[in-house]
């Protein structure tokens, strides 16, 4: 049984597109295909005029640095035996650019808001938010053009989420990045996505600018997501009102 069947979307350079859906809607599969961890059985993935699905592994290797992924669970996406420096340097090591490694790693750490003095500490000693920042630094190491964030913000507490979102916006501006966000939290991505695609049961059921999706949801799945987002926002407002 196919996880994903009928998916179609386009991202413009410098834009942020979010794929939103419930668990099992197939969004992670899409993310992995775009990041070239998996090959779709049919269909094409175009990256600036090149169809990635047609490339052999050697040719694909030249594209990989330009498409990077940040995973949901920071702790599993990094080898617990590694230090922060080793984690960030890894893409450079593999690409054979180790020479610029240490300096660049320190610069990246500063940029994402983790003190470079801690670069020799084991990953285990960092908090969830710090690890996600380090993951971002690693993703930026190879100077990518597009970042895929697979539920990268969902697992964090709300205040950390806000900080990371701000960081993402800053980075996007500084490096002209394009983002593909994967999330189940419509309210979260609505804050900074330009285009939203709704996924349900392995298909994109709706696609459009954020304002459109939120104010005029067409598909049943979309309406459900919007409704629950609004409900939690109302509840939060009610609690805030009640306590103030």
């Amino acid at each position, binding site marked *: 049984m196919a996880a994903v069947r009928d998916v179609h979307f386009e991202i413009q350079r410098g834009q942020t597109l979010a794929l939103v859906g419930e668990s099992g809607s197939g969004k992670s599969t899409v993310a992995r295909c775009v990041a*070239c*961890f998996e090959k779709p059985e049919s269909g094409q993935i175009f990256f600036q005029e090149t169809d990635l699905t047609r490339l052999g592994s050697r040719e694909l290797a030249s594209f*990989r*640095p330009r498409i990077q992924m940040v*995973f949901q669970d920071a702790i*599993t*996406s*990094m080898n617990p035996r590694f230090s922060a420096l080793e984690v960030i340097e890894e893409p450079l090591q*593999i690409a054979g650019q180790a020479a610029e490694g240490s300096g660049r790693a320190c610069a990246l750490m500063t940029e994402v808001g983790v003190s470079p003095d801690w670069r020799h500490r084991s990953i285990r000693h960092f908090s969830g938010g710090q690890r996600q920042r380090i993951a971002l630094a690693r993703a930026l190491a*190879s100077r990518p053009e597009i970042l895929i964030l697979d539920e990268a913000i969902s697992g964090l507490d709300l205040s950390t989420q806000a900080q990371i979102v701000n960081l993402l916006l800053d980075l996007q501006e500084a490096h002209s990045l394009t983002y593909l966000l994967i999330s189940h939290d419509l309210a979260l991505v609505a804050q900074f996505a330009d285009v939203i695609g709704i996924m349900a049961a392995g298909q994109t059921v709706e696609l459009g600018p954020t304002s459109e999706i939120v104010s005029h949801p067409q598909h049943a799945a979309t309406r459900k997501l919007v409704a629950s987002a609004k409900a939690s926002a109302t509840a939060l407002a009610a609690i805030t009102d009640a306590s103030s």
Partner: protein
Amino acid sequence: MALKTSITIAALAAIHLVLLAADFCAPYDPALQDRELSYAPPTPAHFKGSTGVHLRPFVCAWTTVMEGEDAGGYKEDCRHEYPLRFFVRGASYKFAGVYEANLHLFGTDAPGKILFAGTDGYGRDEFSRLLCGGRISIAAGLIATFIALLSGGLVGIIAGYFGRWVDEALMGVTEVFLSLPWLYFLLGVRAFLPLHLSALRTFFLLTGVIGLIGWARPARLVRGLVLSVRSRNYVLAARGFGGSHVYLLRKHILPEIWGLLLTQAVLLVPRYIAAEATLSFFGLGVSEPVPSWGNMLSGLQQYSVLISYRWLWAPACALVITSVLYSSLADVLHSRLESQTT
């Protein structure tokens, strides 16, 4: 590290060191027969002699009882006292197989004999045989373990890393090997190989066979671990950065399996020592006159020897002590491994 673990490791290290220098630590040539002293019990140590109490113990000679109801047995003849001496010149041996030497850790003046563990049916010093035999048995265990882990580890890594049909095929083969009653198979394989070879060749053949039969379980365990590590997100990420197979194996996968290999090693060594002992006991392993804990025990198959000459149990005690030490170390390592992975 806990006290118990430290003691265990120290004890094991001591045993291995002593056995490594078996020729030096043993007072006599293990092959030297003395028909006059067949089945002699261990010589008791005396501190109080004709000239008063000494700090240095001495032994008396064994003489055969000629008449009376104990005829054929031994009694002490203390007319001559043979004190324990250290660093004695005795039978010559080849140190590390190359250097001729004849220095022994302890001994006594001829014709006295210090018999820590008595003598066997041919009058050979059981203690010397215990040490030299131990060297062979433990070396067999260690080498066989190395072979099993090397081959099993390689297969496990290949199966776990490349997956799919390679994995299926290799695991199918391990199932064949795991379903065999290992001793039957060991016997069978040994049967097909030449029975009478030089002692060295027999030894290597034996260890090779034991090791090659035991590769299946480590292979399965390593494969399981490699499979799980390979699918972890950080390995996927490294692949995403363009990491080659060699890189992934070297940096991410291999560091994870050392712990498993060590635990397996400590588990397998006593089993393979026992396997060598069992084979030699049956006459299919190391054969006379080269001693091994196994073939030293085969004399015990006669009931009279089993009951009357209890000092000949020494190899059994040695086997048990070594196995228990290794097992308790294995338990510690295993629980440490468990706590690391959970």
